[in-house]
């Protein structure tokens, strides 16, 4: 498969991830030699277009967070390319990276551990401006106040410390910190999964508003399918370090073509007790990425796997419907 073929004609992506790999060495024995690799991300390609939200969904250990971290080079990739507006992020030197980070920001899952407890939040937010040498103290202060208002907080919050805020407010601060440099692209790594549902809704609405107002592009990483469906324009489903399926939101949720996506969707608890739900129960647990199954990585749990084929040949992403890519030998059966 050529990764480039996944981009759609006529639109040029803001970000393009091409054949991304991230292996973690496993060391053992007396000399701590490398004995194996954990293939956390193993040949992942996708594109994100300006102004859209790409949802990246999967269970723990599927590699979704590793993808998001390598995109900002918070983790160094083992192989592959990441193009931001045509510039290869992975090839950038320190100065180039500093420049790129003005346009690429991240919001983390845990708003409790991602803020410095000893800094007033205003200073935490202003730090990026200082690093990039933007403005004088007065201008920075004003920009901090402006961004606080933008995320629904008040001016006086700038002088307070993280422990004085609730979880939802802290996540707003995390978003403010990501916004302060006016980036084009923000990685949102499980931004609402630590929040209560009533607060989660507030933050999701805020993210939608900000995207419209500022024309932001998001990579939204999450395990909650309903949240991903709500916020995303397109969705990529990951399983054991690979993309199983990627499609526009409506197409994916209306007609998932990968058996794993189907199982994931049927695993979502029903919305009303009277609802009849046919559940595809997968047997067993997600295998270890240290020693992934041969062939299709999903085949030991797959209800439709055919031995002799699925356990031998690894399926590649194929476009079966417009912009709907799926890595399954038998996906045609579900059309």
């Amino acid at each position, binding site marked *: 498969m050529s990764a480039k073929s996944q981009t759609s004609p006529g639109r040029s992506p803001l970000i393009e991830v091409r054949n991304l790999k991230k292996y973690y060495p496993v060391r053992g024995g007396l000399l701590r030699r490398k004995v194996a690799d954990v293939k956390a991300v193993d040949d992942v390609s996708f594109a994100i277009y300006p102004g859209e939200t790409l949802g990246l969904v999967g269970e723990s250990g599927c590699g979704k967070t590793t993808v998001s971290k390598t995109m900002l080079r918070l983790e160094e990739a083992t192989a592959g390319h990441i193009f931001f507006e045509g510039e290869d992020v992975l090839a950038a030197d320190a100065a180039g990276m500093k420049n790129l980070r003005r346009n690429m920001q991240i919001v983390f899952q845990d708003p409790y551990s991602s803020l410095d407890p000893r800094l007033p939040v205003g200073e935490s937010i202003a730090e990026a401006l200082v690093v990039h040498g933007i403005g004088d103290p007065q201008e920075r202060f004003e920009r901090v106040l402006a961004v606080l208002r933008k995320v629904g907080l008040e001016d006086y919050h700038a002088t307070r410390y993280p422990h004085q805020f609730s979880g*939802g407010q802290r996540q707003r601060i995390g978003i403010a910190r990501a916004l302060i440099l006016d980036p084009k692209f923000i990685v949102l790594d499980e931004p609402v999964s630590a929040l209560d*549902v009533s607060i989660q809704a507030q933050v999701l609405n805020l993210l939608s508003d900000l995207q419209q107002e500022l024309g932001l592009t998001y990579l939204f990483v999450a395990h909650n399918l*309903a*949240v991903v*469906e*709500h916020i995303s324009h397109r969705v990529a489903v990951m399983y054991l370090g690979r993309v199983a399926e990627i499609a526009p939101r409506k197409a994916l949720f209306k007609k998932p073509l990968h058996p794993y996506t189907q199982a994931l969707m049927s*695993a979502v*608890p029903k*919305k009303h007790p009277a609802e009849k739900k046919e559940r595809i129960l997968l047997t067993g*647990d997600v295998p270890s990425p240290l020693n992934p199954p041969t062939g299709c990585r999903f085949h030991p749990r797959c209800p439709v796997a055919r031995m002799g084929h699925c356990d031998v040949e690894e399926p590649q992403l194929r476009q079966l419907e417009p912009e709907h890519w799926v890595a399954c030998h038998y996906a045609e059966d579900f059309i």
Partner: protein
Amino acid sequence: MSTKKTTTQPLLDVQNLKTYFYTDDGVLTAVDGVDFQVAPRQVFGLVGESGCGKSVTSLSLMRLVDTPGKIVDGQVLLQGENLLDKTPAEMTKVRGSQISMIFQQPKSSLNPVFTIGDQIVEVFKIHETISEKDARQQAVELLRRVGIPDPERKAQAYPHELSGGQAQRVMIAMALALKPRLLIADEPTTALDATIQAQILDLMQDLRDTTDTAVILITHDLGVIAELADRVAVMYAGKIVEEGDTTALFDKPLHPYTQGLMGSIPVLGDTKERLEVIPGNVPSLINLQPGCRFASRCGARVEHNLEICTQVEPDLIEFDAGHKVRCWLYQEHAGHTPPLKAFADKKDRK
């Protein structure tokens, strides 16, 4: 969902339970006058957001509240016997044999230095006179019952060798070992991945249908309630604000908080531009304002211009048969006519 009739004597009758925490900042009223009944074999859901008091309620039932927390009032009647009157030694006997509990983090609830077989055998040995061999055999049988593959071999495994889903299955096996009357499941699937959560929900549905154990299911996830619960109570800031049969509650949530909660959750296959939002945050449970605890976040209070909400606390009243709500939209008071009348008064309502 099976609807078991609740005509029999309740198995558990919780009356006016109050558990307060005496902190340096003041008295935190974590559970403040909670009443509910659980019928034999019923799955009773307790749903709410962090800090609503659902977990403290369950720990109070087990008498596991630590200082500075204290159960200050109320009764917990298990088959007519008040658990709050029991001595610590008597309580130890109740735990495990009559009430057992499973937690959100199964791995931290298992002892890492013993095999899971040993840990289940221990449960039998503490509570029953049983030979080692019989206990071990029963342990393997239990593991098979909860869907652990190759149970003879897995009984020799240590907790770190289990996945999260398997560990929760082992916890369920241990909790059911002595066929308790009541199982308290505190967020049993929250820490699990989606496909594993589905497996555990499936197991719990199966156990609900095949054992005599009643379940108190504590969760923040209304979807889990919809899957499993026969009856559900919604908690907010230390109080039950609504209680009803699960279908009735999902069909017609009465309390503005329940309505807001349902509207704020993204639902798979039902996308909308914006989610409904409950403004603000849960109030601090120290130095609460008078009146309804939800008043400061309540849109209905503003819409109907109700002054009483910030002055007097409403009661949990039965509004429709078996469907209770704590809200001034529905309750009469001197000088206050509720804007929404009881269903019994209005025939045009379903």
